[in-house]
C-alpha cells in the first residue's frame, strides 16, 4: 500500500478521501489555490502545497503544478476526487508518465467514456441499451438545418448536452424547434467555459424519467462487480441534490438486470477502479445508458451506508494492485440511505450560488447521521469554485425512517452567513410526493416550482431578535473580552500536581 498520496482536489471530497487515508496510515498531501490557504482540507492534511492563483485553470486544473507538487512531496499516487481533473485522460496519462499512480481508470478509458459519442458506440456493441440521440456533435457555426432535422427525428423534447460534460453544465432542454439554435449556442458556450470544449450533442428527453445509476468496482485482475444502485432523480439546474439507495422504483429483478448491464459496460470499456454507470429509467421500467462517470461520485456515501463498504478504501486497494476482496454474491444492501447536498445557494432564487463567509456552523449528529463537511465556522465559500458545503447522509432501517431521520438532521443543521437549501430540503423530505417515492427528474418543477419558505416560526424568530438585542453585552465590555486572549493559567481552573 502507498505511504503517501496527493489529493488533487479541495473541499469536502478532499477531506473525505483524507479521512480514509488517515485510517489506513497513508500520509496525505493537499494542494490549494491562493483563495484556499486556510481552507479545511489544507488544515487537515499532513502536508499542503500552494499550486497557484484562485482561477481553477491556474490551480486545481493546473497539471504541471499538481504533478510537481506530488513529486516534490514524494507522493506515490494521486487521487483526483470528483470534478476538476478527475475525468481528464491526459492528467491520468501525465501522472503515469511521472511515475505516479493515478487512482482511477487508465487515461484511454477516461477518454473513451468521457467522449459521450465513443461511449455510446462501446455500449451499443456490448448490448447495453442506449438513448435515442445523435452520434455526432454540434459546434457553434455548424449547419443548423442538419441539427434541426436530427432533433425532429429524435422527437421533441430533446436534450442538448455537452459532449465533455458533467455536473449539470452545458445542458439545455428544448421543447420546440424554434428554441433549438439558441439552446445549442448557450449549451456550447457554457461547455466551452466549463470544460474547454464546446461540442454538444442531442438526446431524447423523457419528461418523467428517473435517474438511476449503478456503482461498479473493477480491479486490475479482470474482476468486476456492481455495488447496487442509487436513485438520483431529484435535481435542480440539472445537478443532483437528493440521492438515495436503494431506489424505490427498482425491484430485485430489475436490480439484477441493471447491475448486469453496468458490469457489461465496465467490461466492454476496459474499466478499472470505482466508476458509476448512469441510466435513465423510464416509467415502463425500460432503462437506457446515459454515461459512465469515471471517478468517485459525490453521492457515493449512500452506497457506503447500505453496504458497509468504504469506496475510497476500495479505490486505494485497487490502485495498489489488490484483487477485489468480494464477489457479486457477497454484496447486499441493508436498510435505506439518503443524501442531501448542502450547497451555498439560494433556493428562493433559482438555487443561484451564494458564496461568502460561514458565520455559524453546527453540524447535526446522532444515530445514523453522517455529514461529510468541507468548511468550518469562519471559513470562506469562495466564488471561484463549486459552492458545495457538505453532503448530509442518513441511514435507517426503512425508507420512511430514513426520511424522518433526514428531516430531523436538516432541522438541526445550522449554517449562517451564506444561504443554503436546508429549508427547501426539509419541505421536500416532509412532502407526500417524496414520501410516496414518486420521483422523476422533473420532481422539483412539478412539486416545488416557485417554492417559498414556510411562514412557520416567524414569531419565534421575532422573539429571538428581541432576546438577542436584550442580551447584547455593553459595547465596552465586549471589546475588552474579545481583544485579549486569556492565559492558560486563567482558564485552567482548579488543578493539582
Amino acid at each position, binding site marked *: 500500500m502507498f505511504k503517501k498520496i496527493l489529493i488533487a482536489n479541495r473541499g469536502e471530497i478532499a477531506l473525505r478521501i483524507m479521512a480514509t487515508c488517515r485510517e489506513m496510515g497513508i500520509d496525505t498531501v493537499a494542494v490549494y489555490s491562493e483563495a484556499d490557504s486556510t481552507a479545511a482540507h489544507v488544515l487537515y492534511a499532513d502536508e499542503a502545497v500552494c499550486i497557484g492563483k484562485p482561477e481553477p485553470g491556474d490551480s486545481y486544473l493546473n497539471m504541471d503544478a499538481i504533478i510537481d507538487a506530488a513529486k516534490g512531496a514524494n507522493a506515490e499516487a494521486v487521487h483526483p476526487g470528483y470534478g476538476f481533473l478527475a475525468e481528464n485522460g491526459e492528467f491520468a496519462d501525465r501522472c503515469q508518465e511521472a511515475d505516479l499512480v493515478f487512482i482511477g481508470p487508465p487515461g484511454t478509458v477516461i477518454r473513451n467514456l468521457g467522449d459521450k459519442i465513443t461511449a455510446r458506440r462501446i455500449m451499443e456493441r456490448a448490448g447495453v441499451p442506449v438513448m435515442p440521440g445523435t452520434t455526432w456533435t454540434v459546434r457553434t457555426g455548424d449547419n443548423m438545418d442538419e441539427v434541426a432535422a436530427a432533433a425532429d427525428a429524435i422527437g421533441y423534447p430533446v436534450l442538448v448536452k455537452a459532449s465533455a460534460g458533467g455536473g449539470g*453544465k452545458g445542458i439545455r432542454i428544448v421543447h420546440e424547434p424554434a428554441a433549438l439554435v439558441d439552446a445549442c449556442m448557450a449549451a456550447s458556450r457554457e461547455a466551452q467555459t466549463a470544460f474547454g470544449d464546446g461540442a454538444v450533442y442531442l438526446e431524447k428527453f423523457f419528461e418523467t424519467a428517473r435517474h438511476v445509476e449503478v456503482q461498479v468496482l473493477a480491479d486490475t485482475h479482470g474482476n468486476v462487480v456492481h455495488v447496487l444502485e442509487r436513485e438520483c432523480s431529484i435535481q435542480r439546474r440539472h445537478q443532483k441534490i437528493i440521492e438515495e439507495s436503494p431506489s424505490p422504483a427498482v425491484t430485485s429483478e430489475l436490480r439484477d438486470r441493471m447491475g448486469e448491464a453496468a458490469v457489461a459496460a465496465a467490461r466492454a470499456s476496459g474499466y478499472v477502479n470505482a466508476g458509476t454507470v448512469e441510466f435513465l429509467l423510464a416509467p415502463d421500467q425500460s432503462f437506457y445508458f446515459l454515461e459512465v462517470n469515471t471517478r468517485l461520485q459525490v453521492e457515493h456515501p449512500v452506497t457506503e451506508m447500505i453496504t458497509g463498504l468504504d469506496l475510497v478504501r476500495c479505490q486505494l486497494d485497487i490502485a495498489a494492485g489488490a484483487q477485489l476482496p468480494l464477489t457479486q454474491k457477497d454484496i447486499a444492501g441493508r436498510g435505506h440511505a439518503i443524501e442531501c447536498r448542502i450547497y451555498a445557494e439560494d433556493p428562493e432564487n433559482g438555487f443561484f450560488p451564494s458564496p461568502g463567509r460561514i458565520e455559524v456552523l453546527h453540524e447535526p449528529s446522532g444515530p445514523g447521521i453522517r455529514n461529510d463537511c468541507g468548511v468550518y465556522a469562519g471559513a470562506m465559500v469562495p466564488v471561484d*469554485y463549486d459552492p458545495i458545503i457538505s453532503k448530509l447522509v442518513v441511514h435507517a432501517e426503512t425508507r420512511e425512517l430514513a426520511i424522518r431521520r433526514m428531516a430531523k438532521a436538516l432541522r438541526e443543521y445550522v449554517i449562517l452567513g451564506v444561504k443554503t437549501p436546508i429549508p427547501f430540503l426539509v419541505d421536500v423530505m416532509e412532502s407526500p410526493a417524496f414520501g410516496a417515492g414518486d420521483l422523476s427528474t422533473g420532481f422539483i418543477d412539478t412539486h416545488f416550482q416557485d417554492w417559498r419558505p414556510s411562514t412557520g416560526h416567524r414569531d419565534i424568530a421575532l422573539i*429571538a431578535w428581541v432576546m438577542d438585542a436584550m442580551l447584547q453585552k455593553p459595547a465596552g465590555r465586549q471589546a475588552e473580552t474579545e481583544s485579549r486572549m486569556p492565559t492558560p493559567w486563567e482558564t485552567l481552573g482548579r488543578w493539582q500536581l
Partner: protein
Amino acid sequence: MEYNLTANGEPFTVTVSPTEGDAASNTAEAEMTIAGNRYAVAATRVEGNHLHLKVNGRGMNVYVGEGEAGRTVMVNGLMIQVADAEDAARSPQGKRRAKRGPQEVTSPTPAVVTSVLVAAGDRVAEGQGVVVVTAMKMETTLTAPYGGVVTAMNTEAGANVNPGDILVEIERDADGNEGDADDDGQ
C-alpha cells in the same frame, strides 16, 4: 416597549415587557405579544450566536447571525430575516422586498458578465433577458423587471460585477403601475 420589526419582509409589532435580565449570567426574561399571541419568554445566551429560548415553557435552540438588513435567525431548519422596520426600509434589499420582486437589473452574487443582450435605446418587455452572467460556471440570464426603454448599459462582456451594481437602466413605460402589487401573504 414596542419594536416595529419585519420578518422576511412582512411587518410585525412586538410588544415587550422585560421582567428580568442579568447580563453577567447571560439570561433574560420577558413577556411579549405578537399579533395577539402572548408569549412568556426566558432566554440564555449559550455562546456567541446561540440562544436557548423557553417560550411558554417549551425549550428550543435558535441561532442569530448577520442578515441582509438586520439579522438572520435560524430556527428548526428555517432561515428567517428579521430587521428593525426602519433599517429594513432604508436598505436596498428591504426596499426591493417591500415592492415584491427585483426592481433593478443586478447580479444576485459576484459574477462575470458573459454577454449583453440589449443596448441603450432598445425597448424591452418585462421578463426579457438583458444581461447574461456566469458565477461558479453557471450561466444565468438577468431579466428586465418591467417593460420600458433602456437608457443606459453600465456593463460589458467580461466585466466583474457585484450585487447592487445596476447593470442596466430602464425607463419604465408610463402605463405600468409602480409595482406595488398587493401583498398576497402565503
